[in-house]
């Protein structure tokens, strides 16, 4: 097993082990860089999404330890881990406008409204959201929805950002643009990011660290 370590690896995962009736995720130890973008890269069925869901806390993983600074995030329920997540299916709230989706995240993170407004303006500029902020999320195109999902994930200043195949539903041209915008936002906000992907182009464009996974194990 080979792990690529960052210069100051402050996020340490231990005992990321879960049996799924025929498939097992088995990562006894993993140091995830607390800066830049770490890509978890592997083919379909390698366990990337399972790892993603286990780390976020959507599925139980008894014995998991995940130290981040002084905190063991594994002991906290998902809302208290203060993670930003962009799901593969984006999961915007279709009955809310794009702006409402983003501000919802700010509200639940108890960001003061003037601060939320300021962040909103910045993100709208960074991700070019201004033209469709008032449109219902259910009516956005794939690329627009993806940018809104990212804005929603970062407005609360999460301690870690998870991106689960964020560009898979976009065409080639849009992907190039999207990667650029995502990179820009991550770098500006300096949020450590775990990028789940099987696309080599994503690695080239975004990742500072690459971790390969196959059969539920890091290779």
């Amino acid at each position: 097993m080979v792990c690529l370590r960052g210069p100051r690896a402050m996020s340490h995962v231990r005992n990321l082990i879960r049996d799924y009736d025929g498939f097992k995720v088995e990562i006894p130890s993993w140091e995830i860089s607390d800066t830049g973008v770490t890509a978890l890269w592997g083919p379909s069925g390698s366990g990337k999404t399972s790892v993603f869901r286990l780390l976020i806390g959507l599925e139980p993983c008894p014995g998991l330890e995940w130290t981040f600074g002084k905190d063991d995030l594994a002991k906290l329920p998902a809302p208290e881990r203060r993670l930003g997540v962009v799901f593969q299916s984006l999961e915007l709230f279709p009955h809310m406008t794009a702006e409402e989706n983003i501000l919802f995240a700010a509200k639940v993170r108890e960001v003061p409204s003037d601060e939320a407004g300021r962040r909103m303006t910045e993100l709208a500029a960074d991700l070019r959201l201004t033209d469709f902020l008032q449109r219902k999320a259910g009516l956005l195109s794939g690329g627009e929805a993806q940018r809104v999902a990212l804005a929603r994930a970062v407005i609360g200043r999460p301690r870690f950002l998870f991106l689960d195949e964020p560009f898979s539903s976009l065409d080639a041209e849009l992907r190039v643009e999207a990667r650029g915008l995502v990179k820009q936002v991550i770098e500006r906000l300096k949020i450590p990011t775990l990028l789940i992907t099987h696309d080599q182009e994503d690695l080239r464009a975004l990742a500072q660290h690459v971790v390969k996974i196959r059969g539920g194990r890091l290779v």
Partner: protein
Amino acid sequence: MSGTRSLNTEAYWRASLRVLLALLLVSPFLIWLIYISEWEFPPVKEWLPLVFVSGEQALVSSLLSLFFGWLMFLGAESWIERRQKQMCEVVLLLPNLTPPLFLILSLLAWVTPWAAFPYGLNAVIFAHVLMNSGLVAIALDRLVQSKLGGMTEAAWTLGASRYQFWTRVAWPFLKFDLACLFLFVFSICFTSFSIPFMLGGETWATLEVAIFDTIRADGRWDKAVILAAGQSLFLLALAVALPRQFWPPRPQRRPLPFLGVPQLRQLVFLPALILVGGWLLGLPNSFKAHLEPGVADAVMASLALGLSVGLLHLVFFLVTAYASPHLGLQRFLNGYLSPSSAITGFAMLLLPGSGETIDFVKLVLALTLISFPLLYRWIVHAALDGLQNQILVARTLGARWSTVLFEIVWPQAAPQILRASGLAAFWGAADFAITAVVAGDFNTLPLMMTNLMGNYSLPSAELLMIPLFMVSLGLYGLFTGAARYVSR
């Protein structure tokens, strides 16, 4: 050319079957329309108060069912393991599946040893809530899983509290579905008969009871049919206004424990405990009794009746599947509720033919007409609706409708169709309302129970609940077992 002819023939058959199905379902009304020569519209002052009481009862029952169902849903979500979830589903559905007679006897067994049973509107509402809140809990689970599953996870990881999730995400998104769910429960409570008849005391808690009394006391079929038709039209209109069916197919399950409230876990079991506990409390009394002669005949009669009703439902569901998708048919089936047992049962008597065999067939048909629309709406519609895209693909490839039915629809919808047929068999075996009207000398277990109750033999009647429950469950098991055979 022959391909075109055969497609036209299929189109003709499908259209004919749709019409035939709709006509069969409304046939009790049509039969009475032909039979009754003089019609008198019941005076407004006679039926309007009934509508208000019925509406009030149904409104309170359904609102409370929705509220307690929501609490049970929250409790059920805190059970995480797959087997625990399956157990929750069975336990939650048990009161709804149980024939009303069991439910009533269980309730009486809890209260009567210690206090007077509070008959009246409140008792009817309580029984309806007991019966329906589990159903609401499961419907909410299906809705949340299928429509909100991903959003729930997103909201949770963003840090939303349960309150924020329910008020900002779930409620605005699901309100139309919740309205349809409310309408479904409202229809059940509005048209309920056995529970308000037995527990309502001096209050006519539903129009159905009033319809029965109009027939019994006055023999005024014209009034009764008009009231029943008005009721059906009213509910159909509501259903057309809220056409979205509320019961999504069983979705890919993902655990949503963050929605669950662990303190409400045990609430999931409460209705089933009341039901089963009441029955167990009444058992010692029953053991003083003995099984009356004729039980074996009654068991065979109930088995034959339940099985036939289940089989006829199966045929009806297959016909519906073949004739679907069709918006008009779906809207009709999702909105129409059959007229009361008395109106349907006596309408069958007016059909030509008599004798033991014909009476049996009429009885089976009557029971099917009563429960088919409800079971279609509750279980089968979602199964068929979920296959629309596949049907479209198959048709685009050139498949005939019969091929679509047997190769695409049936293999995937068979479990739900057979489960619904099994439920029909369960209810058919436990029916006493229609059987009492149509059966003649076909003595089933429920009839035997009511006859014994009429002859000072209440403990013997209660003892018969055991074979009745076994027969009903056995029939349900037979159909669900058939589902496994078909799925192999």
